[in-house]
């Protein structure tokens, strides 16, 4: 199968850069699978799991917290706000994010638009937490 270059970048460092055949990313409009020669697409990402199928058939999973993906026929770059390998994910850290989002909601000092955003984020986080517990 045709492979392409996939890069997973977080603000702190380049996490992954390798040839892959298939990447499943949690785009904000629903999960999408990127394969070689995908049409150029730019999409935002919600918190979720990225599944990477390397050229040698090895599958690895990463947990990302929001960001966006830049997809070109020749490669895919995922700019994640924060990303960790699914095996190393820290449940306490997710709980902490959920708590922080909840606190922000209760703060009430923000505009409605902002509150809606936080609410969606909170829902996505809770969902992610559910998925991870099932692992």
């Amino acid at each position, binding site marked *: 199968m045709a492979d392409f270059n996939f890069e997973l970048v977080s603000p*702190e460092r380049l996490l992954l850069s390798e040839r892959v055949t298939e990447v499943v990313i949690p785009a904000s409009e629903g999960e999408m699978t990127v394969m070689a020669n995908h049409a150029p697409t730019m999409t935002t990402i919600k918190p979720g799991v990225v599944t990477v199928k390397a050229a040698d058939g090895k599958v690895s999973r990463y947990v990302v917290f929001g960001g966006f993906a830049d997809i070109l026929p020749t490669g895919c770059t995922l700019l994640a706000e924060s990303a960790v390998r699914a095996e190393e994910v820290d449940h306490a850290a997710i709980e902490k994010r959920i708590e922080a989002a909840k606190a922000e909601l209760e703060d009430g000092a923000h505009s409605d638009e902002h509150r809606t955003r936080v609410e969606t984020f909170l829902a996505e986080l809770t969902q992610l937490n559910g998925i991870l517990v099932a692992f």
Partner: protein
Amino acid sequence: MPSLKDLKNRIASVKATQKITKAMKMVAAAKLRRAQEAAEAARPYSQRMSVVLSNIAQAVGSDGSAPGLMTGTGRDQTHLLVVCTAERGLCGGFNSQIARFARDHLRKLLADGKTVKIICVGKKGFDILRREFASLIIERVDLREVKKIGFENADQIGKKIIGLFEKDEFDVCTLFYSEFKSVISQVPTALQLIPAAAPAEAVSTEAGAAAIYEYEPDAGEILSDLIPRNISVQVFRALLENVAGEMGAKMSAMDNATRNAGEMINKLTLSYNRQRQAQITKELIEIISGAEAL
């Protein structure tokens, strides 16, 4: 004239100081390497970010739906200055350089009759600016407890800035930090965060690619998600550059201090030896003249 014992004590104390400065220099060198690595590791992200941002800005720019963070409020009455400095001193002119640069900018704004608000990141800048502009400082971010600056630290500052903008607290936001040129040269820099100045150089090279992108959701929505993120990334980059700069400045400052201490020891040893010789000669003269008198 200090006695022999005094000189000996001075030499011992200068030697002890030299040991400390030498150790600090080596610590700074090790930290500098780590800071440089961190800054380098963060580069791919900010590069990709600016490419993507200019692509989208171009796609959106034409229909005028760009979000407020990009266009600003249309006024420039209230300015917010985010001044990033180090938490610790003993790094030469590093902190005062940034503070002076920010202060010049501040005075100019005040002279033009603008309202100015300051957020201080780092203790040293706060200490310097507090003397003159205590009433203008609205917030102080303390990173002293933070061993290694992570994206979360920058993100908190970024969110704070955006929160203030949403409450209509300021019109223009400028970030002050020190750009890390090399170990011996750090240049204080001002970077306008809001309204964001679109990175012009990337636009021309990416112009061809921009036209065929599909956006999901539409470009405007991605942009409004991207720009707050970009602000955090810029703050993050500034903080990393600052750490690298601080360590570089500290290294050269401590190197200077070590060298000065060495010079001082040489000088003191010389006068110690001279005085010891003088004392020996004096004693000899006493003995000889005593013997002659017999």
